[in-house]
């Protein structure tokens, strides 16, 4: 009985992730471990966003770019965002691990043969149109539908 339930859950997650399990709100961001789980389970691109308090370029991204309609749509459709405070203890160790040496940094990862493969990264703020283009490019690189 127990085996069947686990199997069903696993199959559900594999085939129709959106319908199985709890509904995940992909319009918001998650702590890194949780975002990693979601990216794996829902076969999405993991965008690790390193930001810092008091960094005006992060503030610019938060206020004008990451809330933009088109940017929000592609993120919600194909990505999971991990929100990492680069100056917190966990953030500092993750920054070292991913070699993210400034903010804002965006690291793009996809699950690949049981590990995470980096498909690209961005450093620095950018205008909406440029960020949107870059998200579309990473999305196309990862393959699949809904990149525009």
């Amino acid at each position, binding site marked *: 009985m127990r085996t069947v339930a686990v199997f069903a859950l696993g199959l559900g997650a594999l085939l129709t992730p959106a319908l199985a399990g709890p509904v995940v709100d992909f319009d918001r961001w998650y702590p890194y471990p949780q975002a990693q789980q979601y990216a794996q389970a829902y076969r999405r691109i993991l965008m690790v966003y390193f930001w810092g308090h*008091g960094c005006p370029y992060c503030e610019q991204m938060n206020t*004008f770019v990451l809330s933009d309609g088109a940017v929000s749509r592609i993120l919600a459709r194909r990505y999971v965002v991990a929100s990492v405070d680069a100056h917190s203890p966990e953030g500092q160790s993750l920054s070292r691990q991913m070699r993210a040496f400034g*903010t804002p940094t965006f690291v793009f990862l996809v699950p690949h043969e049981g590990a995470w493969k980096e498909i690209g990264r961005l450093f620095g703020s950018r205008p909406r149109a440029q960020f949107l283009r870059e998200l579309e490019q990473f999305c196309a690189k990862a393959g699949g539908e809904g990149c525009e």
Partner: protein
Amino acid sequence: MNRRKFLKASAGALAASVVVGRVGSALAQGGLEGEDIANLEKGLQASLGKGYKDLVPSQAIKLTAPAIAESGANVPVEIEVNLPAEQVKAIHCFCDKNANPLLFSFQLLGGGVLPYYATRVRVAETAPVRAVVETKDGRLLVASQGVRVTVGGCG
């Protein structure tokens, strides 16, 4: 606080020379970096019921804003109108690339208030800021200034 900043090369000296060159004329009605007339039009229609074509460039408006802003969150804007106070109804300010292009409206109600207004605004990304002066006889005068918002990061 970690405030060492790395500015992208593209936002540095090269852009500065381009912007300063273009911004020279506060009257410029075209060719300012980041111009987005379609978005500006939405803001003009929503707030004034008028369009871009109804705006008349005027040397009577002195619009002061930085040609380069390190942060778009806090851009000082000062508008001085060289017209008798009795002729001026309101001073509006727009930015082409903001989701909501209307930044503020200042209305003069008499009592010796002069056609001058200064504040600090948010600029979404590199775009012209426009001072629109509404006169009592229904004219809309405009002066524009390009503001480049630096892109970059903190190290």
